[in-house]
Structures are given as C-alpha cells and as structure tokens.
C-alpha cells in the first residue's frame, strides 16, 4: 500500500465520518473535506499523530453562501494533506490554529482582510495586507467584490 493510502486509512479508521471524503489526486497529494465541527480533531490528529508538522499556508474561498478554508499541511515525506472546511457567510467564525502553528498568524490575518473571516483567538496586532484606512465591509477576494467599489467609496470618478 502506498504511503498516501496508509495515511487515508489511518484517518478513516480514526474518524469514520471521513469515509468517502478523502481524495488522493496524485502521489503526495491528499485532499479532504470535513465539517467545521469535526475540523479541530481531524486537524490535531493530522498534526500530532500523522506528523504533518509544517503548515504551508491557508487558502480562503468564497463559495456563494459559505466561506471555505483549506489548510495545506506538509509531512517530512513530502506528502501534502489539504484539509478543507467551510462556514456560513452570515457568521464566518473559525478558531485560530496558532496554538499548533504560531506562524499561522499572518495567514489568518489574510483571511480576515481579504475574505472577511472572523478568527477567534487571533491576538491584537497589525492588519495584513490591506491598508489601515481600507473601507469597512469590503473584502476584495469575495466573488461579488469589484475594484470599482473602492473607487466609489473614495469618491473617484472615471472619465
């Protein structure tokens, strides 16, 4: 059995609900989706037991009425586990992963600025990457956001 299949099997035996939600897309690439409720335990298991101890980054998604987040975790073996979870846009609150990855701070700030996510447990600090005077409730990586919105807010007119 390949190392990817081993990892998949270990995850499914630990968390039955993952059955059918894990895809191996090619050698060293595993994608899996889980509900926000189950996410913390799957994430912690992957990091602590399966030794996915490097967080490459976090990718945010705007999926109509939901915001989704994919955590790209790497193992020393080169295998990447891409863990995705989603939350309703009405209250897009997730918990920080900083207790396990202090370096995640800047990736989570990006989710706050660009997607309008709320991250519980993120310490006070400088925002990233938008400017301090960026208009409230404008999240540039949301699908409905257009650069023209910013111009309107700032009172720019196009000739």
């Amino acid at each position, binding site marked *: 059995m390949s190392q990817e299949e081993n990892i998949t099997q270990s995850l499914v035996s630990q968390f039955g609900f993952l059955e059918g939600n894990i895809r191996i*897309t*090619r050698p*060293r*690439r595993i*994608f899996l989706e889980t509900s926000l409720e189950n996410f913390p335990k799957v994430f912690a298991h992957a990091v602590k037991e399966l030794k996915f*101890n*490097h*967080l*490459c*980054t976090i*990718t*945010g*998604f705007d999926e109509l009425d939901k915001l989704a987040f*994919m955590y*790209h975790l*790497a193992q*020393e*073996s*080169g295998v*990447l586990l*891409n863990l995705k979870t989603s939350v309703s846009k009405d209250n897009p609150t997730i918990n920080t992963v900083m207790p396990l*990855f*202090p*370096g*995640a*701070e*800047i*990736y989570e700030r990006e989710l706050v600025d660009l997607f309008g996510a709320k991250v519980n447990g993120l310490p006070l*600090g*400088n*925002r*990233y*990457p*938008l*400017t301090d005077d960026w208009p409230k409730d404008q999240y*540039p*990586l949301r699908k409905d*956001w257009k*650069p023209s919105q910013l111009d309107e807010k700032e009172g720019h007119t196009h000739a």
Partner: protein
Amino acid sequence: MHNSDRFKIPLGPQHPALKEPEGFSIALMGEKIMGLDIRLGYNHRGIEKACEERNYLQALYLVERVCGICSHAHATCFIQAVEEIAGVQLPRRAQYIRTLIAELERIHSHLLWLGVAGHEIGFDTLLMYTWRDREIVMDLLALVTGNRVNYGMNTIGGVRRDISPEDIAEILKGVDILEERTKYYIEVATQETSIIQRLSGVGVLTKEEVLRLDAVGPTGRASGVSRDVRRDDPYAAYGEIKFNVITDDHCDVYGRTVVRVKELMESYSIIRQCLKNLPEGPLTVKVPRKIPAGEAISRYEAPRGEDVHYVKSNGGEKPERVKIRAPTLANIQAVKQMLKDRYLADMPIVVAAIDPCFSCTDRVISIAEPKKDNRVISWETLRNYGIDWYTAHGIDFTELNNKFRKKLERV
C-alpha cells in the same frame, strides 16, 4: 526598568535603508531592541484577484511578475498546478530546461544576496566582487531566454525556447568561471575574520524555533532543518538529478551565508547534470483547449525557500481561485524572534539575512546623447565618451593604461 525608558522608533515603510516598503516599529532601551512590530502589505497588488479575471495563459505572465528575482519560480510553480489539473505530462526536455533555468536563477539570486549581505555589514568590496561575477549568470540567462529577469520560458505544457548546442557550450564555460569564483567566496565566508565576527551569533534562530514558526529555505536549513522541496516533493527534473541539501548548525546569519554559498556549488552540479543528460524530444505537449474543473497545489524550492501555489479550476476560461504564498511571508515572522534582545545596528543584516524579495531593475540598452536625437550607441563609443569626460575633468588614465598594456603584452 520602567516602561517609559523604552523609546519607540518607526523604520519604514519609506526609508533609505530599506529596499522595499515594509514598516517596523522598534521599541528600544538604549540601543537594545526590546520589541518589534512588523507591518507588511505595502506592496500588495491584488494579483490573486487579478488572476481570476484572466485566462490561464495571461495569469501565467502575471504571476511571473510577482517577483523580479524569483520570476521563474512563481511562473513554474503556478504552471505546474495548472498542468496537473489539465492532466498534462510534460516532455522530459521541457522538464530539464525548466530545471536549468531554475538553477541559473538561484545562482543569480544567491550571488545578489551575498553582495547585499556584504553591503549591509559595510563590506562593499564583497558587493562589488559578487555583483560583477553575477553578470556572468545574468548574461547566460539573457542568452538562453532573451531576458535578465522575467524569462517567459514557460507555457502550459512545456517551454517556449530550446537550448542550442552553442548555448550549452556558453553555459558550461560560464559555470566553470562561477565555480572558481564561488570557491573563493566559500574561502572568504569561512575564513575572513571580519565576516565571521560580524555575522556569528547575530540573528539567532534555533532549530526548534524554525519548526515552530515554519521558516523555510536557507533560513531554515542554516538552523539544521533539512527541508528542501526539490528533494522532498520533487518537480521538473529534480527526481532524476543528484544533489545535496546543504544544512548548517550555526543558526545565525553566518550559517545562512555558509548555506547559500555552498548551495551555489550544488547548483553548478545540477546544471552540468541537466546539460549532460538533456533529453532529445519536443518542447511542448498538446494541452486541451479548456482546463477541466479541478484543483492542485504545487510547491517549488525558490532561492528564498518553499513557494506555494494553489490553483482551482471550474472548467471555465479563467481560474476560479489562485493562491500564492511566497517564501518571504513564511520567513518574516521569524525576524521578530531573530532580533529579540539584539542591537539596533544588527537590524539591516538580520532582515537581509532572510533575503526578503526586492525587484531587480532593468538595464539600460539605449542611451540618449545630450542634445541629439535618441540613438543606440556602441560600447566603444560609450567607453570613449567616458574617457573624454574624465579627461575633461582633469582625470587622465592614459599613462596608466599604457603601462598596463605593456605589462599585458609581456605576459
């Protein structure tokens, strides 16, 4: 001590000592750094959003411009993800050419870094030497790709230019010279007392801290963390090539210097292997006109460390989502740790030691003569213009030049 003894000074985002905009707020007690606050984002150009408004090929040219130095790194990292979604198997010759350009780029980046490091510690001779030698690799890149930066070598399913036998001969010649020069730099870096004393114990980042903060590239490897995407998660031709992952246990700026100069030697070896085993065959493979729905994540060992690109396709003309994480973002967080309890004077070299990305400027190719129409002038005319200018200002090298000429003739 009471808090009021601390003095807060802002450095940046616009500051003569910084090569790109980033803001530091430094809490000092005397000259000692007690706390550091970093503000980034001044260079945020909305490239991820812009990619969603372009087709895949246009996005490729855009991501190549994420960074002036690592342009091939970003372009390759992105296109690998797109090719994976399209289910395309790259021709082997294209994989080898991508690898070749990647290593030439690493050489140009590392030599540039060594010069900047020299400059930041007031050792400008090293800057002059390394940047002079760097021109060799810049010329090779220009010869092979037509450009010094932003090479435009990649396309979906392969590379756009071939390597001719004449190019191969030139590259091998250039690499021989660079290797000789690098041996000298290894000597300088490991034996020159002023370098060793200035860099040792500065900007310390322990192995545990690297693992905790997820630092990448030479910054991590200089703290004994053997991580290199080329070996761990091979792409392009790296799976077929032998090389060593250089690590060092000094955990400071000195270690980061040693790692980079030694990595240069590995790059020469990789280039020679690429050219020796360069497979025959086509440069591109046919790619379906539409990229099917799917997602892929691609990693690439850029000169500064792990570069990450995630691409999602919905089956349409344009990507649904493009996510880019450049290595500097992973490393900048370690800078806080490195500067704790250090002196303000260490700041420039410690920040420079993670090799934050800043853009290369283009070179001048046409020179407007004063009061005349724009025209391209030859090297000889330019040289004579310089000699005349200095002579008119009372500086005459004729005698000295004649002396040197005679000396050279005797040899």
